[in-house]
């Protein structure tokens, strides 16, 4: 048993001794590195180790949460007391309980890569510099790179619960990205390139820098499109943003509390046949993969949308109790500071058969969206209605044409899914906020707001 699991177990005992009826501890130990490069120099180099625990206490259906970084016996006693005090303030909820019989998790391979530990900081710093160089060298229209960033993390998580649920796992992850600037003072364009892997050995600086350059340069001379309704191709990064929204909508918590646009659509047709979606907490290609979820329930693979039909919602223990079903292993948490809640793990959209070029040809006349902005402000998560800022390329006669900026795309989530005409053949992992693997998507019709 590792020291972290021991610590988690001791904290559960302390919570029970301190008045909790049931208790759960989530303990993490993380080492991170971050390098920021600019103008062929390292701008900052940061390193850190951090440990923290969060304790959830249940007292007669009331739940409280305490967290902290002081892991001494005295510190744990303080955190425990906080959790118990917090529980006494909460109102009782008949469905609140820790997982009682979550079943055995199987070990999951592919979560760690040794290169995170093996590459010294000087070598990952060189990787960040190489990303910047690649962006500058791959296209002469690139004026500068605002920032090239490398980040990695090694994490160990231990969960212990008074009911016996829990476990421990380790993972590593890293990413690099660059924001390239194209054009001159009369008009700047930006482009983001990124890559993710389990370790720095899995990142290719030439590809990441090259993507940043290509995206920035492609936007030079961009114009505002006229307002109209037309076919829209979403590239993988943009499609991923919408799939992330969908991930919230399929969470049972939003559904049970009447805050999901899919709440009344279980078993109904919510998408075109071309759109097939699953949640897969066991696919180690995505950063959300783990043998157990954030409350110790084994992860699994859950089909969500097949043949256009919404098959199920995603559940943690609380929402499963409330809905009279079983947890789908979808308790997530953003760290030791917050208690678990329902969250998608890795959302995976099945690829179709069309190449990107074939998708454009299929669209005929329309717009290809390569970036969206303002998702947190422009989407109503309850109704699914959205209007977000976008940039991209015009599609004329089935091919990419002039670059477009400063327009909006608007629809609602379900209407958009129902009008997916085709999915591209090449999916990509996109880690912005959610962990999503998705190909480019062709939407039959969306409203484009421009001039």
């Amino acid at each position, binding site marked *: 048993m590792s020291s972290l699991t021991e610590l988690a177990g001791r904290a559960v005992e302390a919570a029970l001794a301190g008045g909790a009826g049931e208790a759960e501890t989530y303990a993490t130990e993380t080492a991170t590195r971050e390098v920021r490069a600019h103008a062929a120099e390292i701008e900052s180099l*940061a390193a850190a180790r951090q*440990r923290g625990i969060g304790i959830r206490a249940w007292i007669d259906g009331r739940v409280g949460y*305490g967290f902290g970084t002081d892991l001494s016996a005295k510190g744990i006693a303080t955190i425990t007391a906080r959790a118990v005090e917090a529980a006494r303030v909460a109102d009782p909820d008949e469905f609140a309980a820790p997982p009682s019989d979550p079943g055995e998790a199987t070990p999951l391979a592919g979560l760690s890569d040794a290169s995170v530990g093996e590459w010294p900081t000087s070598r990952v710093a060189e990787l960040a510099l190489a990303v910047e160089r690649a962006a500058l060298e791959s296209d002469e229209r690139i004026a500068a790179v605002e920032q090239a960033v490398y980040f990695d993390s090694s994490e160990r998580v231990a969960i212990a619960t008074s009911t016996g649920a829990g476990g421990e796992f380790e993972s590593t992850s890293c990413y690099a990205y660059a924001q390239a600037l194209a054009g001159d003072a009369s008009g700047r364009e930006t482009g983001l390139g990124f890559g993710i892997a389990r370790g720095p050995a899995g990142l290719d600086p030439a590809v990441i820098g090259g993507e940043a350059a290509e995206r920035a340069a492609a936007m030079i001379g961009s114009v505002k499109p006229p307002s109209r309704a037309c076919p829209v191709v979403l590239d993988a990064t943009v499609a991923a943003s919408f799939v992330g929204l969908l991930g919230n909508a399929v969470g049972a918590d939003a559904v049970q509390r009447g805050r999901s646009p899919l709440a009344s659509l279980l078993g109904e047709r919510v998408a075109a046949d071309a759109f097939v979606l699953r949640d897969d907490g066991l696919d180690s290609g995505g950063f959300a993969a783990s043998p157990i979820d954030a409350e110790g329930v084994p992860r699994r693979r859950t089909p969500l949308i097949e043949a256009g039909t919404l098959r199920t919602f995603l559940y943690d223990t609380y929402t499963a109790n409330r809905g009279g079903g079983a947890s789908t292993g979808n308790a997530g948490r953003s760290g030791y500071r917050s208690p678990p809640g329902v969250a998608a793990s890795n959302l995976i959209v099945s690829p179709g058969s069309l190449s990107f070029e074939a998708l454009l040809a299929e669209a005929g006349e329309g717009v290809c969206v390569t970036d969206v902005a303002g998702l947190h402000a422009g989407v*109503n998560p309850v109704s699914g209605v959205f209007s977000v*800022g976008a940039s991209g390329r015009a599609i004329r006669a089935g091919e990419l044409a002039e670059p477009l900026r400063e327009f*909006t795309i608007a629809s609602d989530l379900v209407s958009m899914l129902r009008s997916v005409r085709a999915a591209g053949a090449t999916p990509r992992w996109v880690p912005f906020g959610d962990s999503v693997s998705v190909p480019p998507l062709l939407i039959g019709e969306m*409203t484009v707001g421009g001039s």
Partner: protein
Amino acid sequence: MSGGDGLIDSAVAERVLACALACGGEFAEVFAERRGGLTMAIDESRVESVQSGAEEGAGVRVVSGGTSYFVHVDGLDPDDLERAAVEAAAALRGERTEPRALQARATTPLPIEQRPEEVPAERKAEMLRELDERGRVEGGEIAQLRASYGEARRRIAVANSDGLLTGDDRTRVRIGVQAVARREDRVETGAETLGGHRGFELLEDDPGAIAASAARKALTLLDAGPAPAGSTPVVVGGGFGGVLFHEMTGHGLEADHVQKDASVYAGKLGAQVAQPLLSAYDDGRMPGEWGSDAIDDEGTPTQKTEVIADGRLTSFLYDRLTAGRDGAASTGNGRRESFRHLPIPRMTNTYIAPGDATPEAMIGEVQKGFYAVSFGGGQVDPATGDFVFGVSEGYLIESGRVTAPCRGATLIGNCLDALGAIDAVGEDFWMKTGICGKGGQKVPVGTGQGHVRIAAMTVGGTEV
């Protein structure tokens, strides 16, 4: 408070700084912090999500030739701090630099009348129940209501190799309400917040008004039609309407963007960027405001910085490092989310100063336009100047009158165009709270203005 009392003592700070500069570097700093807080919510009329925690730790930074080396540790154990300093210095290969002897500088934290941690948690739960009730009585169509309460206290100490030793003690309280209204298949939401760098006294007079307001917004939207798409005059409401200025100008004035030539305002200091009727400020000293602090997170006293005077760009916003590069002084805008982050130039409270127009007059002059009362939030790319805002409450303006409510509208445009197109600034003025994200760090910011009119802007809706 003076110096690092309670967090880090002077002798420890001096040892840590000496370790940090053992292999060279122009500047070293240790930032120590103890933070704690309580949050809770009411949802489905049930008090839940009661969470309380405390963290402490420190970050050590060494700056050498344009590179910042940063190591942070949990806890404030002097040995751990020294180890962090040694680790931060490890990449350097130069000769030892001697830090100056520390001199404590007293700071007067913003006054807190009623310490929130001394108010019983049960009273906060009661207040949430009151918010729930106040929202729900607005109408039977209110289907869901979630209200949250949060209090946070951050005590910080900063010591650096220039001999500065100072600290601050910050307390913030904020409540927020999100209401969902439902009529058959129609679902709409309304949200409202109230917050300040203040204690529990913030909630003395009628916090329930926030809930009523959020509920009324959601109910109004039930009758809303689709928003128009196209270019039109836009009148923006006061208070959180100021997020427009925050996004389209404020971020572009942060000196890190400017120095990388990744801001549309780079090279425009002294230039006329707006009509003469517009003046604007960043002010970290506004009493009790959400974005205020006594000092920034590098120990520089906060200040009121005029950024636009009669339409002319007068200042960028600096932290220590970016000020040094420009040969300027820090404007007290070096902020960080916590001891786990490096400071970067950030806004505090940013606002357009009151003008002389009345909201009625500026709306009355518009034949056909859009009235954006409030926003859900916004985003800008400072390099291109492209921005986007989600409108949370909007109406059509027809023949000088505010008419039908609209849903799902987005405002989109380019900073310099939109700033230059502001042709009326209202005499009414108030501030609102926001949480601003940049470089992976979230900090509390205030935004404010009276009503403002933009002669032409793109509204993105579903009605072509």
